[in-house]
């Protein structure tokens, strides 16, 4: 019987830098998703506003014709926002799944690396190589999950850009309603209130897209760096 001696191999730490970097990247994505959580409420506010504006336009008769057309366009924008919100929800689910896989694989790679190190220190090269092969085999799903997360972040940026387009269109509508208000006579106050309220929603939406966009960009940059590290340096794991 050989009582084995432990070699002081690192069971913690090896690869943990990459784990922390992955968590930081995920935190950025989370911030972006969190900002998106308000989208549904803002879209609903915009929908109610468009209904009220349509009623006001109806009351204004001929003078409200253009506003009526603008409110219909606003409802189309609301539908687009709801669609983006649904897609973002799916994306968020996918990102959680990828992160769970990534963290599991990184943890396993770290433990296998520690095991390989310890076995190598005992001089059992064949066993160390067997463990090394097991560790290498894990790198493939790890890289796949990492690429998946980077791709999800890119998709998230694309969704944010779509929201930004909607925001810009809503801003134009608010401006046009304000212009229509100047010629609406007794209905001016009512139309102006609609335009001002819409501008307020536009500002909130813009802040949301700015926050989400900056978090997603930061996540994307970190993800790409992490992916490059994973591709170029297996030993880092």
């Amino acid at each position, binding site marked *: *019987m*050989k*009582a*084995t001696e*432990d*070699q*002081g*191999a690192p*069971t913690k730490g090896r690869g943990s830098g990459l784990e922390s970097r992955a968590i930081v990247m995920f935190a950025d994505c989370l911030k972006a998703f969190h900002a998106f959580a308000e989208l549904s409420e803002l879209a609903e506010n915009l929908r109610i506003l468009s209904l009220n504006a349509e009623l006001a336009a109806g009351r204004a008769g001929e003078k409200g014709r253009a506003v009526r057309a603008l409110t219909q366009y606003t409802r189309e924008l609301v539908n687009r926002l709801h669609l983006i919100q649904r897609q973002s929800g799916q994306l968020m689910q996918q990102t959680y799944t990828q992160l769970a896989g990534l963290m599991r694989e990184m*943890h*396993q790679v770290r*433990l*296998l690396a*520690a*095991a390989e*190190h*310890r*076995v190598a*220190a*005992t001089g*059992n090269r*064949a*066993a160390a190589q*067997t*463990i090394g092969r*097991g*560790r290498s*085999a*894990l790198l493939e799903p790890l890289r796949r999950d990492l690429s998946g997360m980077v791709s999800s972040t890119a998709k998230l940026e694309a969704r944010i850009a779509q929201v930004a387009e909607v925001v810009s269109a809503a801003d134009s509508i608010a401006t046009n309603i304000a212009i229509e208000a100047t010629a609406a006579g007794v209905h001016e106050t009512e139309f102006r209130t609609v335009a001002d309220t819409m501008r307020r929603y536009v500002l909130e939406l813009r802040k949301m897209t700015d926050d989400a966009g900056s978090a997603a960009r930061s996540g994307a940059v970190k993800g790409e760096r992490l992916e490059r590290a994973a591709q170029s340096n297996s030993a880092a794991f």
Partner: protein
Amino acid sequence: MKAINIFRRDSHRWLAFGQDPEKPGNVIDTNQMVIQAGNATMLLDPGGMEVFPSMIAALTQEIAVDEVRHLFLSHQDPDVCSALPLWRRVCRPDLKVYVPWMWTGFISHFDRDANMIAIPDEGMEVLVGADVRLRILPAHYLHSPGNYHVYDAKAKILFTGDVGAALVPEGARQSMFVENFDQHIQYMEAFHRRWMGSPRARDAWVEMVSSLEIDVMAPQHGLLFKGGDVRRFIEWFSKLEIGNGVDAFAARRG
């Protein structure tokens, strides 16, 4: 990590691994049993993720990883199962993993791709190598509701998972075996009173193992019992009042 031979006859061996000095302090100490027969090896409760690096380093000093063909998980606890995906990464692809039928879906949370063989309630036999026939015996409710022990009639060794487990302070461990049974009771009494919930299951277990010839009884935590201490333990356990967690209900009622 300590490694000792607890039985050896030709190529038939039982090894016990445990008392890992590198183990983080907040991780419970575990014993890992290994049965070798010819060029086939079975790991019994191979330990959690945190002890995997030490365990495999100690194991490969004795046995080639490629010889590990069977892996037995007595129940669902993480100190038993959580390293399963790591073992599968380094062992041969046809590794057989014996798991209580009740826990297959749960243990899949540790490793959904493992080739699990569901152990039926009544237990089963597993042939390791050409001629070592192990009996997987029911030990349900001691403590897990789907729980098994392993008996090797040739080696006269009974692996008992959490039955016989003890939380022994480092300073009180001179070897991997109990040296003084009466002194040892203090390290296992509270555990058995609380973890073991069913007197009926305990009585059935006592009856079952009393008919076995046992030279060594190997629990998954603490020290192993040999010789007369095996009977002493069974006798002690048969009389112990267990399931004391229920007292908390009465305490709550005031």
